[in-house]
């Protein structure tokens, strides 16, 4: 096995974004098999962090920095992977557009959800805070996402989650995407009331929910 795969794994476990990029660039330059780099390097690393997280040994900075490093390295490999280079293929578990709804600027919870989804193998497109329904949908359309995930932390902005579902209805796109919602003041009942496809109380549950929706 090429020793670089082990180095990539370690870079992810250490949450070293710069090193992850550097190693990914080396993979491209030296024409090392990118699929193997992903499977034996990036994924191995993030799985190790994920397992430590599940056991309560890893904490948020460990997981979030590992997710950032993984994302940065994978971005470098994107072109060669898309060109079908390497043995076999690598495909993400599904694309998810994530953001905080209009009028709301809380983003800690959203960022955690994004990191855990990334570490679970999903490709997450984080569009940021204070985002309109149109912005979620435009991004989902652009990247071919299957899930739209909207966060809201205020009772006064929760209605923007409803607006999102209604917007999809109006555009006849309701069946194209799964919509999931979350954030402090939201509830399972609220999710049901507005016709979302799912709600989760924590980031871990959000991962389980996405896995279940894309089965």
């Amino acid at each position, binding site marked *: 096995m090429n020793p670089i795969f082990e180095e990539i794994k370690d870079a992810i476990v250490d949450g070293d974004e710069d090193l992850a990029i550097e190693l990914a660039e080396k993979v491209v330059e030296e024409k090392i098999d990118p699929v193997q780099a992903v499977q034996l390097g990036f994924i191995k690393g993030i799985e190790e962090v994920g397992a430590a997280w599940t056991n309560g040994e890893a904490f*948020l900075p460990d997981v979030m920095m590992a997710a950032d490093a993984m994302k940065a390295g994978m971005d470098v490999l994107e072109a060669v992977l898309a060109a079908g280079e390497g043995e076999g293929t690598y495909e993400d578990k599904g694309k998810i557009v994530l953001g905080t709804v209009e009028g709301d*600027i809380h983003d800690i919870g959203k960022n955690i959800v994004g990191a855990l989804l990334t570490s679970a193998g999903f490709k997450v497109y984080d569009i940021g805070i204070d985002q309109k329904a149109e912005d979620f949908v435009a991004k989902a359309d652009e990247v071919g996402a299957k899930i739209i995930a909207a966060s809201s932390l205020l009772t006064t902005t929760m209605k923007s989650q409803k607006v999102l579902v209604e917007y999809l209805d109006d555009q006849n796109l309701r069946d194209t995407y799964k919509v999931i919602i979350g954030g402090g003041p939201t509830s399972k009942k609220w999710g049901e009331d507005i016709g979302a496809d799912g709600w989760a109380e924590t980031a871990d549950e959000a991962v389980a929910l996405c896995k279940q929706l894309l089965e």
Partner: protein
Amino acid sequence: MLPKFDILTDEQIDKIHNNSLKILQEIGVEFSYDPAIEVFKKHGQRVEGHRVFLDSDFVKKMVEKAPAQFTLHARNPEHNLICGGENIIYMPGYGAPFVYDADGGKRDATMADYDNFVKLAGASKNLHMTGGTVVEPTDVEDEIRHLKMAYSHIINSDKCFMGSSSGYEHAKDCIELTAVLHGGLDVIKEKPALICLVNSVTPLKYDDRMLGGLMAYAEAGQPMVIASLVMAGSTGPATLAGAMSLQNAEVLAGITLTQCINPGTPVVYGCTSALTDMSTGSLSIGNPENALFVSASAQFARFYGVPCRGGGGLSDAKTVDAQAGYESMMTLFAASSTGVNFVMHTAGILQYYMAMSYEKFMVDDEIAGMVLRYLKGFDCDSDEKMAYEVIEKVGPGGHFLTQKHTRKNFKTEFFRPALSDRQSFDSWSKDSLDTKQRAKLKWQEVLASYTPPELDPVIKEKVEAFIEKRSKELLK
């Protein structure tokens, strides 16, 4: 009153203070609201886009203009409050969207809950104000929530209360409504009667809504709490000294803006900084680090010569259990004994500001009573209090139960619990009620027997007319 103790050395104060000034001068603070940018430009501060770099001497000069204390006026002058100095003001929790019931149920807070908490605060001996946004009344349209909430405070109690700060317009409504209650805008400009909460957006930002509110209160000469909530580890550094420097910089920037708009406007230095739970990312408030932030803030407020807000009956517990009790006692005690003047969230909070609980409210009310007693300290001012004579009279081997001195003094010297159980095991075991069960009976009893103080019918009519007119306009 007990002397308030310091937790930072002069050297530590100096280091954090200078760190904050450096942050303000070199990193700067982002103000998204254009009128605020104009104010800073007019005062000669360096502005790039929406980022303002505040000169250290300028900050010091402006902060000095804020008064060390001020009086907040209630519709019943007996409830006027001095904010600052040795004084301490307690009030209910602020902003929670949920109510947790005694049986473990969770539900959205409503306007009926709102009225109930205002009444409980009105009835309490230990809470000095009825607070503001005592829960989020989720069954009221947000366009007119601020009016309904203010009305609840006006009608259900004659103590001081807080107004909305969410945007210039809502803030103005609350100020004008308070003016109707007190006899005019010029009256409350002389005698401030409404206070609000303005929060920075950590790290190093102030948003439009909050700044709109800030401008409205500053223009009307009404006091405001300028607070920062650093979640150490996520929205701020994981070191206490770093998080405190960041909080301090944000609060100083906010106070500076108020003093530019209206020099001498009363402000309160606010701290809600706490920790991020590194396993879940959630805010955690019932901990020693939070108590340290609050105590350090009280000391910084003294250093800058302004009153301080911080602390409360703060807990991460989901129900009224031992955790709820010990966390709340720690955070209220620390705030109160180190010199915080204005304690939002004194009573009712569960799960890091997410929920209010009636039972928790009664438990915290009891804690507040205990802490207030502690703060009174020893009274050594008279021979009567020194009790030499009665000790002489009883002599060796006697007892004091039948002494006049005892009968007269125990009522004022001893704190009388309203909730705690001091019975024998046998008496207690007749119903075997735990604290939560007793608290439930207690709040129901208090609400059932509470009669809100009457409001002059002429004023009441004017207040209602104002609300009706504004509601129509806002709901159009």
